[in-house]
């Protein structure tokens, strides 16, 4: 369970998160939507401790993320994150990209790591690209590799930050397919996305962010069918 309590975060004078309260229970798929600069990415990087927070508290399964005593590296192994840019490690093959963290962070043996990597890569449809370098993959394939890389750590939670928005339109579908599959398998996920139809189909709840505030949250049918907040209405009328 991810518990976010009154989290505040500023970059210099700019307050990006203005007191966010949110709980994501296990097995839930939460979609976050909102305009550019509304703080969606920042929230995700705060959840896995890549960014410090200024006030409030984020707890994952009872561990407080920003407590001094928390071993962030251990925690991050349990919370996978995939970014908009694919972030493949260009000097490693697909297999090596995926096995690196299990081996170095979890201390897994080579054989075991390989096995997991192959399983996850087959899972995302890259079973035949093991020895390829990322430079030879399409954007969609690179993004799926990044997902497999995060999954290979056997995380309990996955965060996705607009994973399709740097992709050519014809490659978006294959990545969304992968996400849908993960959701169906019961992975707890927080997804930032601009793909509204996808959000409607897959998520349990949808949160709308506006200028650092979570303006509205609810089941997709309500948010898309009957938005309450005027900003939500304005946003949805624009993206459609």
């Amino acid at each position: 369970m991810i518990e976010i309590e009154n989290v505040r975060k500023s970059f210099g004078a700019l307050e990006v998160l203005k007191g966010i309260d949110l709980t994501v229970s296990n097995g839930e798929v939460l979609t976050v939507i909102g305009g550019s600069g509304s703080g969606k990415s920042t929230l995700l990087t705060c959840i896995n401790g890549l960014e410090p927070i200024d006030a409030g508290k984020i707890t994952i399964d009872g561990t407080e993320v920003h407590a001094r005593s928390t071993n962030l590296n251990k925690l991050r192994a349990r919370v996978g994150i995939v970014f908009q840019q694919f972030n493949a490690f260009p000097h490693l093959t697909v297999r090596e990209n995926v096995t690196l963290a299990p081996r170095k962070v979890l201390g897994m043996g080579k054989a075991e790591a390989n096995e997991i990597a192959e399983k996850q890569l087959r899972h995302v449809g890259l079973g035949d690209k093991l020895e390829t370098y990322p430079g030879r993959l399409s954007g969609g394939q690179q993004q799926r590799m990044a997902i497999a890389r995060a999954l290979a750590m056997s995380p309990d939670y996955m965060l996705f930050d607009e994973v399709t928005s740097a992709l050519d339109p014809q490659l978006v579908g294959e990545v969304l397919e992968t996400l849908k599959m993960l959701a169906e398998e019961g992975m707890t996920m927080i997804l930032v996305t601009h793909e509204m139809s996808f959000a409607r189909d897959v998520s349990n709840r949808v949160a709308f962010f506006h200028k650092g505030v979570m303006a509205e949250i609810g089941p997709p049918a309500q948010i898309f069918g009957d938005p309450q907040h005027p900003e939500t209405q304005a946003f949805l009328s624009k993206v459609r």
Partner: protein
Amino acid sequence: MFETALTTRDLWFLAQGAGITILVTAISVVIGTILGILFGVIRVQLGPILSAPLTFVLDIFRSVPLLIQLVLTNAFVGIVLQWQISGFTVACAVLSLYTSAYCAEIVRGGIDAVPQTTRRAARSLGMTWAQDMVYIVTPLATRVALPSWIGLALGVMKDSALVYVVQVTELLKSTQILITRLQEPLFLLLICGAFYFIISFPLARLGGYLERRWSND
């Protein structure tokens, strides 16, 4: 010009000078590179403001003629501090710091060339700072930095011609000694130049080749 009093003994003498040139270069490049990596990483980690003092000091090595650095260090160590240190040691020490100043820049450039997002991805998988440095940053930065580093090493070899001021008889000084005795300046200088060229040219070409190859992918 082709009648020369040059004996095989003299050639051996030149070869010894060349040996000193290579030795001084090798020592300085090795130490300078280790220090340069250290300084470069420190500069990246501390950011431009906190590392300003280090930047300033390293900058001096790139802004003052090497000849003056050598004379000054020699005078400081010997005359002011009264340490009994050989010219060879002074030469290696100064050249090492000189190398490290340039190397720190190269290292910094190499690290900066690794996209921040790639490093973030590594950290988000639970890798520590050190693991990120070893498995992600080092291999990627090396590709960017290696060609410039080869250029630097060759530059140091050429600049080592100046250590004659601290009484180290390297290749060019050996040549001058032979010119004193044999009075065949052009011929001897051509031999000397050819030596530098033969070492430098193939390595320079290799650097250029790597640069071209790696900038393509």
